[in-house]
């Protein structure tokens, strides 16, 4: 068998992932700041006013990337859960737990900004249409995952239970995404998708994509930072933790 370029399994050990995450997260944080600065500048000063909604449409620069992120983070959680169940690696569960609060934050942001937009545009803060309801279920899945893993004292058992919740809940993600296609909803269809040209002006699209990149980088940075804290907490009795330079002080 040929030797792979990077031995990925080496980083499945918390002891070797901890310093890697420590080296990586400041880079992602810096990228997040840069993308957010560029994205916000385009969103507020470059992107034109919408012909119908006026300035109110600018909520999409937060709303759409936050919604994408809330769905994508859930898929990543489910991925780590499947890896955790399959390979029985400790780090996978820690990654899932590190991602959950960020995912919940984005799901909440998506619902909140949507409500703020919905009141002046639709005439209602909230309607029980398929898109809004399934996104609310996603927020509850995140909160349920957090509550369940926090309620079980043994971290390994907590990870297993959490993994099952995130794998069962992942079925909701395609439902959210396709809800506007499958059923009549008040929520509009996708302006940007893989299958057709985007139905929005180019500068608006750029602002949105830059904000989406900023949210990606933020999520990665925060997840890596949080997973370091989780590793330290769970491995506090291990000798490699005691030997860390930051523990010598």
């Amino acid at each position, binding site marked *: 068998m040929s030797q792979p370029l990077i031995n990925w399994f080496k980083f499945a050990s918390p002891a070797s992932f901890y310093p890697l995450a420590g080296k990586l997260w400041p880079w992602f944080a810096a990228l997040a700041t840069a993308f957010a600065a560029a994205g916000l500048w385009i969103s507020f000063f470059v992107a034109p006013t919408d012909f119908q909604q006026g300035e109110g449409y600018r909520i999409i620069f937060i709303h759409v990337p936050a919604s994408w992120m809330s769905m994508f983070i859930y898929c990543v959680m489910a991925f780590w859960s499947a890896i955790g169940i399959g390979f029985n690696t400790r780090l996978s569960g820690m990654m899932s737990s590190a991602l959950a609060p960020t995912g919940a934050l984005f799901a909440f942001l998506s619902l909140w900004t949507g409500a703020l937009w919905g009141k002046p545009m639709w005439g209602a803060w909230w309607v029980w249409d398929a898109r809004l309801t399934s996104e609310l279920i996603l927020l509850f899945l995140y909160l349920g995952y957090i509550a369940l893993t926090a309620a079980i004292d043994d971290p390994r058992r907590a990870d297993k239970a959490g993994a099952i919740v995130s794998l069962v809940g992942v079925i909701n993600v395609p439902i959210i995404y396709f809800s506007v296609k499958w059923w*009549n909803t008040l929520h509009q269809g996708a302006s940007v998708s893989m299958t057709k040209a985007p139905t929005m002006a180019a500068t608006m699209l750029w602002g949105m994509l830059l904000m989406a990149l900023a949210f990606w980088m933020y999520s990665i940075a925060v997840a890596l930072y949080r997973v370091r804290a989780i590793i330290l907490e769970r491995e506090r009795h291990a000798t490699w933790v005691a030997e860390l330079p930051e523990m010598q002080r």
Partner: protein
Amino acid sequence: MKARHKRFAIVLGGLAALGIAATLILNAFQSNLVFFFTPTQVANGEAPKDRAFRIGGLVKEGSLQRTDITARFIVTDTAKEIPVAYTGILPDLFSEGKGVVAQGALGADGKFTATEVLAKHDENYMPPEAKHAVDQAHEAAKTLKQ
């Protein structure tokens, strides 16, 4: 088969079973999941008769009439039409030729009395200049046809 292959198989099998179950459930609740009915669906008798429901479509061009604070307009899906009466404040995005969703009840005379009117926004975002250009192109196409 190694133990981890077995565990992955269980995960994949579980997800597949869940996917099938979700598809069946969503299919069964199809009619409860729609937010509104189109005028064609109402004409075909698909809308509930004993309770309030929502209709959705476009506000027909030139159909909006206001008397005091009551607005009357026609909701169309370009095939069928339903006249709607609504007393109250219309949302900002409400206008002729745009999407609308109205909640209320269908009278025996075929007229819909709305208790709530929501504007349905489409997925098009563009600056006013671009909208102007699109409108002009439409006008040009119309004159060419005539």
